[in-house]
């Protein structure tokens, strides 16, 4: 679907959100205003992190960008084409919850999307083999997800997304269930993949250090309804890894993120208490 007539082309950015708002209808009550309005532009090939207090609409934002739910107002365009109702071609999503298919082996999990797309056997074998090697899963091709750790299952999901060579990868707290050390190492792997694929990445996370380490820019969201309070530029070089967490600049960035978020997190807690 092309951008609606009358909607001006705002920029040449890869992803454009304008006035994106999401309301959830409630029986016998006013609709819940969960998100927005959000205006955002993602540059092609950038790594954009999103942080915000719990319940601020981070995952809702990812859902509307992915086309998994429609915005109540505003529009989203990916490469000039409006997103609406279905996930656009070239968009990959990795969720926080384990989304590996438990009845398939690691190999078949990774090949699933390619088969769905009608890829030939040779292409599937070549891409899956490469993805297995890239994600360090080469020895587990015939294993079932239940035989793997949580981190490895998440790697299977990332590999399953990567083999489709998406231009835009949306990550919804993909390392949320992992311990701190594994998260840092997975972060390194993600940065490697990002450099190799050249894809645009939008990472939703509740971990400020993860956002600060991985992102070129970090969008800080307010408590519900989630809006961007500020977009913090990290100014990291493209060649970076988890060792930057020891730098003073890293401390300054996480400090800045926390100073923006502290008040919003308190507001979110009050909202939660009121809801209880």
């Amino acid at each position, binding site marked *: 679907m092309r951008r609606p007539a009358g909607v001006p082309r705002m920029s040449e950015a890869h992803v454009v959100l304008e006035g994106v708002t999401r309301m959830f209808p409630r029986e016998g009550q006013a609709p819940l205003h969960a998100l927005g309005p959000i205006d955002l532009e993602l540059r092609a090939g950038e790594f954009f992190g999103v942080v915000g207090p719990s319940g601020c609409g981070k995952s809702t934002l990812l859902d509307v960008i992915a086309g*998994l739910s429609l915005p109540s107002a505003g529009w989203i365009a990916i490469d000039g084409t409006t997103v609406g109702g279905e*996930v656009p071609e070239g968009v*990959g*999503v990795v969720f926080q919850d*384990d989304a590996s298919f*438990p009845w*398939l082996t690691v190999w078949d999990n990774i090949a699933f999307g390619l088969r*769905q797309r009608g890829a030939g056997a040779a292409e599937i074998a070549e891409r899956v083999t490469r993805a297995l090697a890239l994600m360090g899963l080469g020895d587990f091709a015939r294993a079932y997800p239940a035989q793997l750790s949580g981190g490895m299952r998440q790697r299977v999901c990332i590999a399953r997304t990567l083999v489709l060579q998406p231009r835009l990868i949306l990550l919804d707290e993909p390392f949320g269930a992992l311990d701190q050390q594994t998260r840092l190492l997975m972060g390194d792997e993600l940065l490697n993949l990002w450099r190799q694929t050249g894809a645009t990445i939008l990472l939703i996370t509740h971990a400020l250090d993860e956002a600060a380490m991985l992102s070129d820019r970090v969008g800080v969201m307010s408590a519900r309804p989630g809006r961007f309070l500020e977009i913090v530029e990290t100014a990291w070089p493209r060649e970076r890894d988890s060792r930057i967490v020891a730098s003073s600049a890293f401390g300054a960035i996480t400090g800045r993120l926390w100073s923006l978020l502290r008040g919003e997190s308190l507001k979110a807690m009050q909202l939660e208490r009121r809801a209880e």
Partner: protein
Amino acid sequence: MKLATKLRIVVLVAAVAAVELLCRAGIIKAFTMIPPSEMALSLWRLVAAGKAHNDMLRTLSAVGVALFASIVAGAAAGTAIHSLPRVRRTLDPLLAAYYSVPVFVFYPMFIVIFGLNDRPKIVIGFLYAVAAMIINTLNGLDRVAPVLRKTARVFRMGPAATTFKVVLPCAAPYLFTGVKLAVAYSFIGVVGSEFILSTGGLGYQIGFAYHDFNNRTMYALILFILAVTLIANMSLHAWEKVLLARRGLL
């Protein structure tokens, strides 16, 4: 072999041996029961002589039709009901109370509708089995994580592809429980019906042998039904264990 399996075999063998001894010692009269070894011998002779082939075929094909229909219809109905939450809320109490209905009482009505042939007993077998399949399909679909349905959408899959390639495979171990119960219930429905008003089949022949004081034929046929249901159930159970083990559920 696991210790539990060994113990199970020991208990079974001991129970059969005890019945054998009680029969041979005359504590259980031959008029009441023949020794298990004679049951097996009688069954072998019956099969070798080909005397019960028609009835075996008639019963097994009726069970097969009832089972196949209940699996297909139960899985389809379960999937449809699951996608309609209001319909489900309405039907849930009815499904829960389903087994309080003695379906056999409808047998005369089914004979009027379908005639004195195999169809009424197939319908009864189907009615007994289909509810188990619907309930277990609903149970299985409840356990499909929403994130897997979302993943299907990310792969741009339509409703049919999502159902057949994601939802049903994910729910497979629970559907399997439904299939296992459907096997047992379709046997109960078909063989039970044959006892009442049928003109043939294993149930009819067991009833006939009973009235004729022909214990050898009666116990041979009972043994045959037990063997078939046990083999079917154990094969499905073994397959179910493989599926569950793959998912780390064992």
